[in-house]
């Protein structure tokens, strides 16, 4: 090949390589100004030498934004990269300053939803004008139509880095509280403009080299609606901050998607309760920041794959409060943190403004106390001097006597005031401890609540308190002790739903035993006796018992007489009208009412137990029912309560019973159930069966071989831990049949049938396998 031809081929290659790298028109002011004297000489101020350099993770451009000039900006390097954007350092050539430039990463730029969220972040930053919020300078498009926005470049460190560098938690506490106060004030402004941040955490607070405090990363922010979340119509007309999502193209689901950082998330965030997200969601996160300042640890500590996810979803804050309580901080501060970190958002301070006010008051009181201490020291000094002077003067006994009388009277009043102050201080201390106990109680940690009240009680043994405090302590102690006892009793019953190691086949027996342990026998007692037994408990416990009864009644193997008692007795004590209708529909076999209750699920979420009961009620005999109605209800339920094991497990099982057209659905939910209870042998067996139930597993080819191998490994895993498990034995027989070992398969299931160990639905599987 000639050299010219070869170079021409390289020309083509380079043309393709540099295609799309066409620089945008230089629309910088300096680029467009054609002054006769040439471009104006740039003014560049002296650079400030800062202790912390910007942490550029790499210099030059990236694949998304090549180095070089983009309009007026010269890209210098990458600062950070996240799911929603890449932050670059760029130089604004017109104004001669460095800025932070945020662009969408390559994988996101085709999705309109991400572009909308990105632009919304810029719009929120652009409209929120406060010293605590990083100002957005400009929103624009790069040469390849990729949106970007530029912001002030902050030089400093995150609060997270500063906090983790402390040698001692009490070190510089007042400084961090001042920073926290500024964060609260910034958020108070944002809340007043109808914006919630949704991802407040120390890593999103920048403390500048000159002490400026700024809340960053508004990528998760949500624009609230006027007058609260319910007032949507008005909000669409009058949002304070206008963004692309609040415009006609916006989608409500996107505005409410579950985002944030798990270790700091409010319970309503992690549960995806989008309707509930408002200013108090940020208040919870502020509580988390304060807790970290006081204790050195975030709201939740741990690994998401461990118990952390469950702690968050259950709003279990006992551990957090314990850490706060044990910190060396003042009670006032602990109280602010505890109030912000309430699981129930309605009990948190209304917005950041309220938190800011309380923190400011606390900090002022610190200053007042410091001033008072100085004053007292000065007074002491003056008094000592005057006493010395008095001694020296010693002007006579008579005068001394008069002086003694005066001093005696003064001492009496002084002692009285001191006693009153001690009384008030003890009462305040006791009240603060009781508040902490209340927090434990609200998160269901009754034993901890009892222990905490006992701590308050010990104060009463040694110190005097204001009237009423003692009675309050006694009342709380009795109440929490009762609940703690009830909690112990409930534990056995609720284990069926929540304990991971529970034998799934023994659920019915476990419920029988659990209720017998609290003195209620569904086998022998009448409905009236059962209802009376239930009413003996506190209303909160009754609610939980009713949910357990519904769960029990939703199980297939419950005897009809027991099922009737369960439904009737629950209806005697349960005031909830929807659930009452459901149970009446079950008793009257009112299919129309059941169908209408199922339709109403889309409007109002119901507890998982009620959904399981409804699905059970909609399940007819196998020969008359294709499972569609029950599956629809279960699917909705699983969407409503994505962390509920039983909803997924039951969906998988129902899909297995009605495999035509439901095999994929069944497999999906079996996989989720297995992820929720990874070590449960029975779930593994069901997962194996759902794999086998897919037509792909039987239709030949590599996919079928892989599927059979995966199913087989699930059955073997189960049989290793639970050797007699009938489901796993059936499944393994299915695998043998699939491998052409029909005789062995037949013998395995025949043995099972002979032992009469296969439940009725399992027999169906056996017949299906044998037919194949």
């Amino acid at each position: 090949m000639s050299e010219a031809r070869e170079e021409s081929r390289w020309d083509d290659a380079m043309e393709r390589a540099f295609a799309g790298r066409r620089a945008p028109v230089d629309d910088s002011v300096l680029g467009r100004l054609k002054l006769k004297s040439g471009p104006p000489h740039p003014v560049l101020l002296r650079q400030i030498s800062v202790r912390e350099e910007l942490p550029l993770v790499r210099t030059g451009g990236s694949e998304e934004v090549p180095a070089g000039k983009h309009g007026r900006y010269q890209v210098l390097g990458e600062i950070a990269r996240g799911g929603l954007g890449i932050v670059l350092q760029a130089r604004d050539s017109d104004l001669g300053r460095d800025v932070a430039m945020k662009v969408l990463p390559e994988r996101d730029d085709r999705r309109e939803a991400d572009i909308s969220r990105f632009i919304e972040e810029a719009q929120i930053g652009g409209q929120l004008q406060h010293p605590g919020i990083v100002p957005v300078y400009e929103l624009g498009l790069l040469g390849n139509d990729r949106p970007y926005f530029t912001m002030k470049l902050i030089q400093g460190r995150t609060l997270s880095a500063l906090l983790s560098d402390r040698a001692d938690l009490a070190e510089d506490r007042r400084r961090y509280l001042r920073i926290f106060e500024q964060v609260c004030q910034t958020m108070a402004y944002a809340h007043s403009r109808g914006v919630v941040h949704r991802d407040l955490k120390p890593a999103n607070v920048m403390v500048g080299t000159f002490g400026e405090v700024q809340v960053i990363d508004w990528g998760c922010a949500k624009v609230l609606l006027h007058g609260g979340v319910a007032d949507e119509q008005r909000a669409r007309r009058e949002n304070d901050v206008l963004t692309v999502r609040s415009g006609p193209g916006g989608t409500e689901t996107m505005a409410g998607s579950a985002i944030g950082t798990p270790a700091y998330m409010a319970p309503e965030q992690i549960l995806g309760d989008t309707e509930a997200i408002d200013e108090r969601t940020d208040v919870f996160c502020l509580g988390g920041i304060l807790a970290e300042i006081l204790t050195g640890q975030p709201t939740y500590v741990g690994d998401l794959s461990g118990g952390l996810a469950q702690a968050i979803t259950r709003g279990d804050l006992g551990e957090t409060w314990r850490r706060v309580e044990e910190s060396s901080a003042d009670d006032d501060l602990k109280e602010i943190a505890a109030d912000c970190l309430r699981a129930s958002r309605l009990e948190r301070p209304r917005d950041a403004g309220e938190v800011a006010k309380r923190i400011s008051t606390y900090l002022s009181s610190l200053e007042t106390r410091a001033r008072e201490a100085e004053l007292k020291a000065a007074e002491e000094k003056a008094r000592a001097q005057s006493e010395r002077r008095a001694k020296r003067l010693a002007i006579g006994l008579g005068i001394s006597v008069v002086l003694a009388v005066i001093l005696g009277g003064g001492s009496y009043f002084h002692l009285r005031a001191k006693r009153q102050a001690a009384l008030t201080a003890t009462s305040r201390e006791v009240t603060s401890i009781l508040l902490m106990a209340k927090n434990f109680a609200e998160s269901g940690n009754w034993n901890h609540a009892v222990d905490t009240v006992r701590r308050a009680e010990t104060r009463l043994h040694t110190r005097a308190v204001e009237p009423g405090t003692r009675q309050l302590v006694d009342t709380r102690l009795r109440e929490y002790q009762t609940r703690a006892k009830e909690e112990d009793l409930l534990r056995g019953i609720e284990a069926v739903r929540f304990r991971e190691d529970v034998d799934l086949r023994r659920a019915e027996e476990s419920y029988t035993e659990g209720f017998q342990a609290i003195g209620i026998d569904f086998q022998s007692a009448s409905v009236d006796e059962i209802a009376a037994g239930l009413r003996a408990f506190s209303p909160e416990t009754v609610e939980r018992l009713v949910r357990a009864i519904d769960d029990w009644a939703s199980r297939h193997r419950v005897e009809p007489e027991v099922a009737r008692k369960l439904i009737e007795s629950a209806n005697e004590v349960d005031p909830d009208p929807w659930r009452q209708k459901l149970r009446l529909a079950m008793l009257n076999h009112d299919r129309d009412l059941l169908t209408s209750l199922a339709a109403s699920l889309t409007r109002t979420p119901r507890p998982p137990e009620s959904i399981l009961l409804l699905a059970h009620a909609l399940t007819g005999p196998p020969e008359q029912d294709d499972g569609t109605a029950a599956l629809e209800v279960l699917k909705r339920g699983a969407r409503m309560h994505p962390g509920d094991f039983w909803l997924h497990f039951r969906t998988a099982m129902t899909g297995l019973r009605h495999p035509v057209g439901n095999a994929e659905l069944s497999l999906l939910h079996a996989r989720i159930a297995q992820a929720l209870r990874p070590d449960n042998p029975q779930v593994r067996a069901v997962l194996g069966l759902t794999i086998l139930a897919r037509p792909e597993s039987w239709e030949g080819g590599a996919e079928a071989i892989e599927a059979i191998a995966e199913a087989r490994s699930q059955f073997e895993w189960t049989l290793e831990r639970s050797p007699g498990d009938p489901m796993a034995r059936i499944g393994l027989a299915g695998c043998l049949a699939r491998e052409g070992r029909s005789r062995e398969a037949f013998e395995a299931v025949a043995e099972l049938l002979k032992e009469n160990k296969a439940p009725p639905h399992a027999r169906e599987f056996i017949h299906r396998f044998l037919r194949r």
Partner: protein
Amino acid sequence: MSKPEETCWTLIRDAAVGDARARTDFAGTYLPVVRAYLGARWASGRHREQIDDAVQDVFLECLRGDGALSRLDPSHQGRFRTFLFAVVRNVALRYEERQARERVKRAPPHAAEPEALPARDARLSRIFDRAWVDTLLRRAVARQEAAAADRGEAALRRVELLRLRFAEGLTIREIARRWEEEASVTHHQYARAREEFKDALREEVAFQHPGLPGEIERECQALLDLIE
């Protein structure tokens, strides 16, 4: 950009064992190729909305412990392009077969549509190859830029020179005038810039197709052939 001792095979193996950077690099590099192929294959029709899912499946298939990579002979250091093409094609076929089966189940036999299994593989493999070439060329530019950033201002200026020449379509004379320098100086820089680009492309090809220099040169030529 990848580390100097890295090849696409070390990258994919690091990605498969969960190295976050390797995963990001892997997805960032090959996503356009996979998407281009699937986009062309399913340009119209019912699969179009499944492109995102299928792209995910391709990466999953490449990265999961028991996926396509595990079935590859460990000593095999062949063309990654072929490997990726096989994976993406298999995933596409799986989607199409699954949908075809669903349709057959729902409809009488005569309703089965023959278009479900497209007989246009040759054209599609060409599209895949083109996307592959574009990816490698873009990565070569990025390589050249990274190297230039280390070498200094003059090297960065040479990358800009190529950009002005090929992206903006300016002649060398025009560039020289813009830069207020002698055309001969610009010509000299241009020749150097071209060589630097060629080196960067060879490095990229070596990354994708580890082998001896002769093999890399042949692969480079094959790449240029694909452009024509």
